[in-house]
């Protein structure tokens, strides 16, 4: 019965698309007042993007200029000498280059593997809760950390993991560890701290979109499945997950394109000289060596490189998703 309903819904959607396409070819209606309002609202977005997303692209010129040390970026763009790809080469030749790339990709891939699916599972399980009150309670509790800044939230963990006065000392005192485990200083723990803390802070918030998608699934599907003898697991596997698959695909592609981005404020809270070999990523590197010494050209070159790779990842991710599931974001 579920299959029948899904098939019918899909065929109705196709019929509706075909009608619209035919209509586009044959009839060209004049715009109504509502159309103008919609176009006006959309235009604001175009203007916003033009001013804040496209206009700054002009600054990318700086990546090909010897503008380091100039205090005024505008002057650096217009007056500094061209230096071709020197800024890019300087980055490739940096002794820390491979470590930074490894950390950036490694940390993000792990986050993609762990932090991407968990909010989906959380949303699915939350939707299965019987008591509405308890559901709301769980959602509120898990949303709350999102609204605390990393400086405060991270500070709690810094105190919690302090070697002499925090959890490591307690674990040793209780005889659970032979010596105090240096969670904050040992580079091997850094990625896990980032993954764990970002999951705790962002899982509730990250599940919002999936909760909304699940809420939009027609209840008739579940009722029909129940009549067919489906248990909870069957309903999740055959109704919930397939219904929110387009949303998952969309966010997966966006996450893949963001593989070179890290939350800088998050990392800076936990970064220290002891764990730097695993905590230095592209974003922290640009922040530390690009801005304070006015190395704008160098920072721009690395930023541009990041954008190009991200664009490539976005296109590739979209292509792979289309190949596998037939769905993409464009």
């Amino acid at each position: 019965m579920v299959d029948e309903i899904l098939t019918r819904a899909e065929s109705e959607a196709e019929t509706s698309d075909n009608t619209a396409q035919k209509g586009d070819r044959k009839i060209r209606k004049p715009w109504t007042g509502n159309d103008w309002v919609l176009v006006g609202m959309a235009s604001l977005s175009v203007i916003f993007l033009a001013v804040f997303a496209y206009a700054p692209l002009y600054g990318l010129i700086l990546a090909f200029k010897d503008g380091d040390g100039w205090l005024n970026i505008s002057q650096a763009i217009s007056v500094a000498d061209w230096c071709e790809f020197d800024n890019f080469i300087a980055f490739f030749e940096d002794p820390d280059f491979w470590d930074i790339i490894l950390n950036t990709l490694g940390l993000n891939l792990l986050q993609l593997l762990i932090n991407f699916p968990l909010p989906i599972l959380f949303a699915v399980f939350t939707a299965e809760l019987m008591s509405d009150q308890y559901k709301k309670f769980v959602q509120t509790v898990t949303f709350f950390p999102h609204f605390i800044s990393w400086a405060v939230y991270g500070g709690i963990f810094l105190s919690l993991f302090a070697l002499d006065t925090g959890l490591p000392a307690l674990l040793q005192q209780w005889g659970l560890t032979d010596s105090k485990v240096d969670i904050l200083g040992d580079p091997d723990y850094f990625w896990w701290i980032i993954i764990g803390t970002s999951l705790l802070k962002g899982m509730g918030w990250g599940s919002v979109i999936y909760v909304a998608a699940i809420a939009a699934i027609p209840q008739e599907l579940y009722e029909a499945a129940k009549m067919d003898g489906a248990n909870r697991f069957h309903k999740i596997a055959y109704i919930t997950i397939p219904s929110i698959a387009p949303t998952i695909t969309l966010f997966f592609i966006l996450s893949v394109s963001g593989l070179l981005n890290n939350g800088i404020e998050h990392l800076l809270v936990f970064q220290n000289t002891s764990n730097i070999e695993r905590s230095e990523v592209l974003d922290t590197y640009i922040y530390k060596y690009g801005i304070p010494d006015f190395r704008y050209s160098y920072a721009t070159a690395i930023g541009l490189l990041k954008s190009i790779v991200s664009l490539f990842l976005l296109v590739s991710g979209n292509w792979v998703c289309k190949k596998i599931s037939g769905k993409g974001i464009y």
Partner: protein
Amino acid sequence: MKGRRLLTSFLAAVCAGAFVLPAAACGGGNMPPIGDDGMAELTYPDFEETPSDKNSWEYIPEDNDMTIEWYVDVSSWPIPAENDVLRKIKEETGISIHFTTPVQDDGQKLATIIAGDDLPDIISTMTSKTQTLASLAQQGYVYDINTLAEKWAPTLFENVPEDVMEWWAYGNGKTYGIPNHYYSYEDIPEGEQLQPNGGMMVRKDLFDEWQAHAEEMADDSGMISYQALDGSTKSVEWQGYITTPEGFKEAASWVLGKYYGSGKGQITTALQLSQFTDQGNASLEWLAQFFAIPFETQDGEYKYRFTQEEYAEMLYWLNDLCSTRVGGNTLISRDNFTQTYDGVGSVIAGGKAFATLATPQDYQMHFATAKDDGYEYVSLYITNSDGDAPVLADIRGYGYLMNMITTDCERPDLVIKLFDYLSSEEGQRLVCFGVEGESWNWTDEEEPKIAYTEDYLALKGTQGAADLGLMTMDLLLNYQYYDNVQPRTNHGKTEAEVFRSNLKRPLSVYAYDYNVTHFVVDATDERFQEYNNALTRINALIGQQTTKILQAASRSEAEQIYQQTVELLEKRNLALVIELNSEAYRATKEKLGIAVAWPAWQEGYVDPLDRTQPNGDLSLYRTY
């Protein structure tokens, strides 16, 4: 249809404009031409020049009423509320000041201000930011002080010491700002022993207990024999055993073994270091001075510290403290490597460290809190294993913040007069002690020179005293002048203030002039940008590798990491850094007129080492 076409055209115009406008906006701005000296050639406003027959600020028209913007590029600088000092400045100069500071110290706000071509009248930034200072001058964002003073404040040359002006002069002989907290040779009284900049402190109760134990360890002649780091047998007076690296380690082990714990009076670390940052650790600099590691070769040339054998030995000694376990705990807690400033502060405030090499002036309040709770810290010195006396840098220097008048300032002729007023003795007294007659008066005696009023003493520590504004406008404060003029009794001081001012004073016997090490590399040199990039990366690498060396499991592993670090430094262009540092070092020595800079090699040097006084000379404690 017409509407649609119009809309399409409009959106197309917006998109095209988005690309064209920034290009037009980046048309080069008002970039002044660069002169032969590598600095921007500036044009000065055409105001009437000021004669030198009386104080320049006295020429400010009485009806002058202006507000200036003063940007202080330090997030922690407390913006003063309206107070009597600011009101007096307004009364004397007709200038009201509106201050701003950044939220963070990452340089982004200053960069934004400059990028937006919206400079304030005055910019104050840290003197340690040599590239920013030089770029502001080179690229024409600030006026040179010499020209401004010659035209509109000739008396400024009498009020700002010549050596200060010369110290900050660039290759063209001009100075582009006036610093605060400078220690001019003109102001330091002859024979005055200044305090050291860094210091070592030890918890007095634990120290006394250890000393009693050490006395028991001594032989009949009061000496303790021990095996030195080089394997030889040495002996030292029992009082000074703790001042040797070997004795300190034994004392630290003894105390940690006896008192480790989180309870009241217990400690969690034997030696607390400062916060480790990506630019290193200040404690290592202080320890290098205690270990008398020279910054100069016997030939009088610059010597880079990290690559010296003595420095490596110092790191290995610290590594030994980090790896030596007493009851499962290391003498230097691993927690130290991840602690923030507050984390280090809480260890000190709680009396949780036996000894500390954290910069005392950075943790004054924490030491005071510890004392209030019954854990008093006193100064302590330590020497290298060879027994050389410590050679500590004293607090002198040529400034903390540099105050510069920007080329966007509409009335530089008046602002330079304000600088002149604040730099004068009259202005300094106002800044340090508040308004005469209100918070202080002259005394009839030679010493002390000023006395606080009863009104001020009654208000001290209350909001009423804050309204008087003492020390709030410290941007041009000359601390040595304050020290020369302040009362020579505990008049007006609380016990806590006296305690804080005395923290490291007994170590003054080992403190010397280190001015030569504050050399400024010529920012107009064409190699400067490359030098600066290399220096940033080198400092970061040293900061990173030092933690690895200290935390290495054994000395051989520490040695291996050290050698690896030296090789990495070479790859990061250490040669260029040493080359430019050496040039700047030579130029600075020439400027100071000295042939030998390392204090222990100077003529007339007397070895002050006294092992029977491990805390330094306690008679140097001041009552004020």
